[in-house]
């Protein structure tokens, strides 16, 4: 299975280099702009980090889809289960490395020479939150990719995600402020960042486990 993970990094190394240069440019740009503009919104930076890392983590799946390589790799001495776990693993590794590059760019662009700020960008909870958000996105999106393929799967997942967001907005707007759910959500969000992140991480791991199980089950019966 290790060969399956390594093959992505081996095969796409030139694109990865280009990607990491772009990622570093984004974070360094934000850091330097913060000094000039003085007030960069933390939410905007988190969103940029999460979205860029999400796109990066899907790079291998995208390349396999583009080259129509799924059939070739499925015919190698590997099982479908290994292919699924390798897809999750390489996506996670790529997400971690991309987040690392973001962080490194912040550190390196904060030198005396550039005199850029880093303030909130140095806070660990922000990075953990970004990673958990990515884990959850992967957990929800992969089963759709394995069931329907990348193109159709992304469309179905997009519909699912929009439905989820609309449901969440409607639910929040119709919540009774004295009701159990409202009280629970408020109390949950008011916890210390460490507690909040810990609970989100555990939740993320459970969801990821369920997602891997569903993906394996789906992909094992799929005709390629």
């Amino acid at each position: 299975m290790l060969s399956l993970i390594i093959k992505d990094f081996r095969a796409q190394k030139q694109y990865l280099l280009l990607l990491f240069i772009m990622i570093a440019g984004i974070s360094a740009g934000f850091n330097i702009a913060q000094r000039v503009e003085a007030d960069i919104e933390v939410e905007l930076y988190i969103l940029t980090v999460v979205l860029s890392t999400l796109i990066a983590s899907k790079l291998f799946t995208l390349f396999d889809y583009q080259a129509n390589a799924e059939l070739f790799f499925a015919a190698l001495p590997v099982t479908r289960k290994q292919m699924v776990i390798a897809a999750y693993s390489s996506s996670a590794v790529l997400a971690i490395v991309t987040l690392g590059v973001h962080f490194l760019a912040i550190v390196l662009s904060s030198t005396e020479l550039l005199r850029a700020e880093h303030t909130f960008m140095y806070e660990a909870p922000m990075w953990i939150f970004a990673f958990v958000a990515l884990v959850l996105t992967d957990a929800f999106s992969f089963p759709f990719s394995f069931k329907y393929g990348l193109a159709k799967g992304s469309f179905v997942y997009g519909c699912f995600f929009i439905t989820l967001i609309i449901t969440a907005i409607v639910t929040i707007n119709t919540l009774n402020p004295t009701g159990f759910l409202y009280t629970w959500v408020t109390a949950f969000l008011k916890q210390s960042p460490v507690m909040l992140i810990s609970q989100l991480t555990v939740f993320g791991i459970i969801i990821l486990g369920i997602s891997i199980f569903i993906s394996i089950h789906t992909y094992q019966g799929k005709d390629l």
Partner: protein
Amino acid sequence: MTNALEITNLSKSYKGFHLQNVSFNLPTGYIMGLIGPNGAGKTTIIKTILNLVMKQEGSIKVFGLDHQKEEVAIKKRIGFVFDTPAFYPHLNLKQLKNVVAPFYEQWDNAVFDDLLDRFTLPLNKPLKQFSRGMNMKASIAISLSHHADFIIMDEPTSGLDPVIRREMLDVLRGIMQDENKSILFSSHVTSDIEQAADFITYVNQGQVVFSKTKDDVNESFAIVKGGNELLDTNTAKNFVAVRKGEFGFEALTADLNASKKIFGEQVVYDKASLEDIMFFHNLKFKSTN
């Protein structure tokens, strides 16, 4: 005699297509040609062997092992070539080798380099700049570089020019110098099968019409040509299908001896090519559907 491949009562249904009770064996050390018109089920059979398509019924054994339970062990000993090579186009052969080789414990760089030399394939040119023939040769080089015991090829010669096709057939013959190797290759270029195969399995509309040695096929099938007056309901039963013309009929018999008993010297008997066999069976399928 051991079998490299044993397929028994294999069935698979798609929307509008059914593979029905497919059964045939390929003894170790031989080449089997899988023939049939487009959409007959050849690719589905090959994909099912490789567990890329899930069977619904039946059993498939490769080297005597269940193809699903022992998937990895079997695939380590299989080399495969698909009709459309699917690699990362930006890689060159050296980089592709570095991606594929770690999957096989038996990978042999010397064999790979030797095959590239033999096929005159450049090591450092991106695959996207390869012609179809070069891509196919690259596929074959990769499939043969881990000392596979069983080579499975889906339409390896389609779309290739005659020179390259001939070269490929030479490669197949070269592989068969080792009597432990077996090859299953599908093609609708029947001349390739006639040149290279020891066994022929003919598939049409998801069913195996016959699976025989090439010698058996040559001995049993024949084209019979004669006057229309010789044809009646009884004599026509002797044929797979009949094509009537203004000056006489042309038919395919699957039992040359029986035909000779019926018609004697009144008709002409010609050797039936695989193309003839496919053509007349197709006529039969059309008339029965």
